[in-house]
């Protein structure tokens, strides 16, 4: 009796991923890195797609964070067990592109064409897809969750201190002083520092991060972000730290709690924090504003760059499975799915139609400021400095940038020393990537 129950349980759990009833369906494995609420919505997309038709079965599987998902997919590829679809974050793009040259990746534009699924690149927002196209403008991977840094602010704290939400960096410093005087412990903060304070800062002011069009034009690229503009910016934040206006709260989104509990009133990080903030923040009103501008560097902001992840298709499977993949991609790009995803999470919609649908539904009137990200992204036609970046080994390089900036925040290094060191160490890794991929 007991053995039977155990056997049954084991059978059930082993078939949970691939239900027996769906055996005749074409199976497509989709590995993603979306945990928590995001994971539920992602799995929901697969379920809904499966329910709509009976030819294809998308198996949506959570594989851990971005790094873990990518590493596992690569390991699986080496073992010949790769999934059809894998979600890879934006800094992994160069690695995936190099794999595409070797035939490991099935480019999305090619996939759609081969499967005969209608696909028009002009439906997609240029600032979103320009990050993921090849030099001929062909889309290589399907943008899924894209966000961009915005400035989150504590509207209640601003009102109490009697200051306006800043639009320039000079105003940020002044506002921080006023907030501090009014009892806000560390008025200014940010997360994902390389992305928000170096990569996006450069794009926003139309400055290059490196040569070869930020790496888009070739593997020989070298970093140049140790320029005066970025150096002045980093030095400014360090000074704010000395004055008690800024307190470093850790890598990634670790400083989120400082914003949520009111210690920080201006926080630069991804627009995708919207969903979480809406449910977690009760004590004060929050809003999002466009990133501040350094008026010494530019008259007008250029456009911000995206972060987040895209869906890559890996080679090595049967053609019907790719047809299913193409249909699933087409389903994901539909305005209904995109608008829902955008409104629930704060990620930007990837198509113009989804943006328009959200407008029609009155989402931006209901939740003012939620269109900040998309406005920032579509301010101007992206230039070679602002369409994104494509540097090899960039996951490790971001860690180097983290390390060097942390040395600035703790006062061990000056902005100049740290940025010079980051560029030098970064270039070293770029050369290594060039050597292993040429």
């Amino acid at each position, binding site marked *: 009796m007991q053995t039977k129950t155990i056997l049954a349980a084991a059978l059930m759990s082993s078939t949970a991923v691939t239900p027996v009833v769906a055996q005749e369906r074409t199976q497509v494995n989709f590995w993603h890195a979306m945990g928590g609420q995001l994971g539920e919505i992602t799995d929901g997309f697969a379920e809904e797609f499966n329910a709509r038709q009976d030819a294809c079965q998308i198996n949506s599987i959570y594989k851990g964070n971005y790094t873990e998902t990518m590493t596992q997919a690569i390991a699986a590829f080496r073992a010949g067990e790769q999934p059809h679809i894998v979600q890879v974050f934006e800094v992994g793009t160069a690695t995936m592109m190099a794999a595409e040259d070797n035939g490991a990746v099935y480019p999305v534009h090619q996939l759609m064409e081969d499967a005969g699924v209608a696909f028009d690149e002009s439906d997609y927002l240029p600032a979103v897809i320009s990050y993921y196209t090849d030099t001929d403008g062909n889309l290589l991977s399907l943008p899924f969750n894209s966000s961009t840094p915005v400035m989150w602010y504590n509207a209640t704290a601003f009102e109490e201190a009697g200051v306006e939400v800043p639009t320039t960096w000079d105003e940020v410093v002044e506002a921080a002083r006023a907030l501090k005087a009014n009892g806000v412990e560390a008025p200014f903060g940010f997360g994902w520092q390389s992305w928000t304070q170096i990569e996006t800062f450069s794009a926003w002011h139309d400055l290059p991060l490196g040569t070869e069009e930020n790496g888009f034009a070739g593997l020989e690229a070298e970093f140049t972000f140790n320029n005066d503009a970025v150096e002045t910016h980093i030095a400014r934040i360090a000074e704010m730290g000395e004055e008690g206006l800024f307190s470093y709260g850790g890598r990634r989104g670790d400083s989120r709690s400082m914003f949520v509990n009111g210690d920080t009133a201006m926080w630069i990080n991804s627009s995708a924090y919207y969903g979480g903030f809406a449910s977690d923040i009760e004590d004060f009103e929050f809003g999002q504003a466009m990133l501040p501008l350094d008026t010494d560097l530019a008259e007008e902001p250029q456009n911000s760059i995206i972060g987040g992840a895209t869906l890559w298709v890996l080679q090595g499977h049967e053609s019907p499975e790719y047809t299913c993949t193409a249909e699933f991609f087409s389903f994901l790009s539909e305005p209904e799915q995109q608008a829902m995803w955008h409104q629930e999470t704060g990620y930007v919609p990837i198509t113009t139609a989804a943006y328009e649908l959200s407008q029609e539904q009155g989402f931006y009137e209901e939740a003012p400021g939620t269109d900040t990200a998309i406005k920032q992204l579509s301010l101007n036609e992206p230039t070679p400095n602002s369409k994104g970046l494509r540097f090899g080994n960039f*996951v*490790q390089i971001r860690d180097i940038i983290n390390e*060097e900036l942390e040395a600035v925040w703790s006062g061990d290094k000056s902005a100049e020393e740290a940025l010079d060191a980051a560029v030098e160490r970064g270039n070293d890794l770029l050369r290594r990537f060039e050597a*292993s991929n040429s």
Partner: protein
Amino acid sequence: MKRVVFRSRWLPYALLAPQIAVTLIFFFWPALRAIESSFFIEDAFGFAREFVAFENYARLFADAGYLKSFRTTLIFGVGVTALAMSIALALAVAANRVLQATTLYRTLIIWPYAVAPALAGVIWFFLMNPSLGIVAYWLDLLGYDWNHYQNGDQALLMVIVAAAWKQISYNFLFFLAGLQSIPKSMMEAAAIDRAGPWRRFWTITFPLLSPTTFFLLVINFVYAFFETFALIHATTSGGPSDSTSILVFRVYQTGFVGQDYGSSAAQSVILMALVIGLTVIQFRYVERRVNY
């Protein structure tokens, strides 16, 4: 001593075979592969590899960050071992004297050992979190500014405490067993000779505990060098700057995050050599100094 003689020639080999197979497949084979990979540069997907001889090693020793990692690992290892062993010894001596509810005390002290390293890290991480943690809040009341996100020394201290906390239980068990095997009569004789508790501890208990202490020393170093990976990964990820980036964490970071398999393999080989060296030194030393 009784000698066991096998009548059949192949039987002893057959009995040993499974263990030898496990060792060969899971220890020797990966180790050899690591040595091999350390001489190549390879792309992430494994399409091409290029033989570069000792370049991976040369790069490592030219990298100031890697050299600093040795220092960090040493501080971490010594810190964890010293802290975990001294506290465990103090607790064991105290628990050895407790007359009532001994099982309860012992169970409570052994408890943390059942906690997974990553969880232990996360617990301390929450306690110490500058904006949420209760300990950070108390420190703030005392006028001490705690922020392990910014201050590397504080971060290192935090991971040392967390790693040691978890190891105390294990050390405690062995020390307590060691203490209980010391004959009562020796202590009584010393007491009659008017040796105070302090003197009795240092002249009788501590020397008689030396085999246990030595064993724990080796175990604790190995623990600090290798098994603390999950703890570091779950709390500081090696930061801030690279102040808590111990060698084993770097192997992971380079290999699994950076997909630089050549350099990661070279680091593993260096680490392997280091541990072999350390163990040899420790066992040579022990033969002379420890009273069994």
